[in-house]
């Protein structure tokens, strides 16, 4: 595999957890909730995935455990931000803070502080015959671990539910004009809680994918801001699954650039390349805002 193909494949692989997390965040924000606990949910998903796969042997169970971890974090956030109607941004930050503490505690308990952490086998790529033989993009799109294919499916499902069903219409109504929706009989807060839980579950899958399909172990704070990047991806993607998918790929590519540079032998310090995704997010946000409209009621607690 030459460098370009490798770079494209790495981009898709790295983008997968980001896509999971940002799809989930998109659902929550469409319902009117800005959910900063997505970082904490992802981290819980990382731990759940690692411990689940370790304890029960097997990636599918790991993914399910990761989803459960994300759900738990989202439930706490929903209780505080929607239930108690507190400031969503600060509540999300607090929940993420707690998640960092709890996952660190649990991991240390399970894996010990001797330094030899958990090591897991990472999921092998699943090759789709014929399609994977396409030049350049073949291996990138059709020779990935199965959570990538699942993510693509999830994007389609999210699109259909949010934009083509009555349920989705009510969800979006709650995010745009909560008072009017409520007057029409839509239980806005219930929809918001559900949306946040879905978002947390998907962030949990994102974390589990990060561990089980990429890194192969757990480390304190391993998400390194990916949850926050997911929020930027939602903005860049104009709160639409297709846009979100493209933006996620963009970030995957920005991160994968490190490997391309290394392969090309360029003497760029790796830390500067590490900055790239975050700087890209800033630049992209600059260009996105103004031409883009967020859900009108985003961040405002519904009655």
């Amino acid at each position, binding site marked *: 595999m030459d460098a370009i193909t490798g770079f494209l494949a790495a981009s898709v692989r790295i983008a997968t957890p980001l896509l999971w997390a940002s799809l989930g965040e998109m659902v929550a924000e469409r319902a009117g909730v800005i959910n900063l606990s997505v970082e904490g949910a992802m981290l819980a998903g990382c731990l759940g995935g690692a411990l689940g796969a370790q304890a029960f042997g097997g990636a599918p169970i790991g993914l399910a455990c990761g989803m459960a971890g994300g759900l738990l974090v989202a439930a706490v956030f929903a209780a505080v931000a929607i239930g108690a109607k507190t400031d969503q941004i600060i509540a999300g930050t607090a929940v993420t803070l*707690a998640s960092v503490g709890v996952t660190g*505690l649990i991991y240390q308990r399970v894996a010990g502080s001797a330094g030899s952490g958990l090591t897991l086998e990472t999921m092998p790529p699943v090759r789709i015959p014929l399609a994977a033989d396409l030049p350049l993009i073949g291996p990138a799109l059709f020779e990935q671990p199965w959570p990538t294919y699942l993510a693509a499916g999830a994007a389609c499902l999210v699109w259909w539910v949010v934009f083509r069903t009555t349920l989705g219409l009510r969800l979006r109504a709650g995010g745009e004009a909560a008072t009017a929706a409520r007057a029409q009989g839509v239980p806005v807060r219930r929809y918001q809680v559900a949306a946040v839980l879905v978002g947390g579950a998907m962030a949990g899958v994102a974390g589990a994918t990060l561990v089980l399909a990429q890194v192969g172990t757990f480390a304190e704070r391993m998400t390194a801001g990916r949850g926050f990047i997911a929020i930027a991806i939602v903005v860049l993607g104009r709160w639409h699954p297709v846009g979100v998918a493209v933006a996620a790929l963009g970030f995957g590519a920005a991160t994968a650039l490190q490997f391309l540079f290394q392969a090309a032998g360029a003497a760029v310090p790796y830390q500067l390349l590490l900055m790239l995704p975050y700087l890209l997010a800033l630049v992209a*946000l600059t260009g996105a805002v103004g031409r883009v409209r967020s859900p009108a009621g985003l961040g*405002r607690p519904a009655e």
Partner: protein
Amino acid sequence: MIAFLRRLGLPVAAVGLGLALLGGGLALLGYDAGGGLSALGRGAFGSWYAVGSATLVRAVPLIVIGLGVAIAFRAGALNIGAEGQFAAGAVAATVLGLGLGEGPPVAVIPGVLAAGALAGAAWIGIAVMLRQRFGVQEVISTLLLNFVADAGVSYLVQGPLQESKHVYPQSDTIGLAARLPVLPGSRLHLGFLLAVLLAAGLAVAFRRTIWGFRTRAVGEAPLAAALAGGIDVGRTSAVALLWSGAFAGLAGALEVTGVTYALFQNLSPGYGFTAIAVALIAGLEPVAILVAGIGFGALEAGAAGMQRDAGIPAVAVNVVQATIIVVALVGVARSRRIRPEVAA
């Protein structure tokens, strides 16, 4: 008296609940909860050394950053990037401290500290510029800049600023002239006095100056401030953010000149986020922030003691901090909003 006790009730309940949750969580996981909590207490208050050199020293960055957070929050702006601004201030202090190590301390120290504050303001200035010109919400931009600063420090201490022997990822130690004077027999440095003065100064500024009034008005009633008061809401909140960054940068400079004397990665164990808890639980009041900062300093010192003596990872104390934030939030949500949705 009753009113004072009532106001004290919320923070005390918050801390109590947080500690209870921590103890419960520890027990659930099979740690020695009792031993852990008592190690926490000893680390914070167990001895004069603990109080002076652990608790109060750790309180300094929390108080200073907390004051900055309060300025921003009062103006209805959200600075979640204190970590990055702290790092920027630490870098500036290190660079200047290394270069100016020989001059008279009376001149060098204020210069180094001012440089730290300026660096912090410059770092958040990026986010402020993005907000003013492009409408990028400061929540996201300040958050993302944290990670950029982190990578930047990593690059510096493994590259241009690395110590002369090129072994460890840290800088050389700064010159003697740049180091803050320390209370003999302890590690308590001048920064604590500065923190107290800043708290007093900010309290006065909030209540008695036009700037303070404008800043608070913009946060509490932006529409009224703009229409009836003729206040430039966008500009006032931007200035508040810059001050917020300056305080965080100053805290970074204080940490380098008073405690570590060198730059390395992860200089801040999450001070930027803890300070948000400090500011919130103190109701964004400068003098209360002083008290809350000391309280949280005790938590941090206790956490280190807990890790040292009972083998419980220090991050566990995040649970206490998060609980305090949540309790403060719920308490406030009952009465009024912390910040309005619009301050642009």
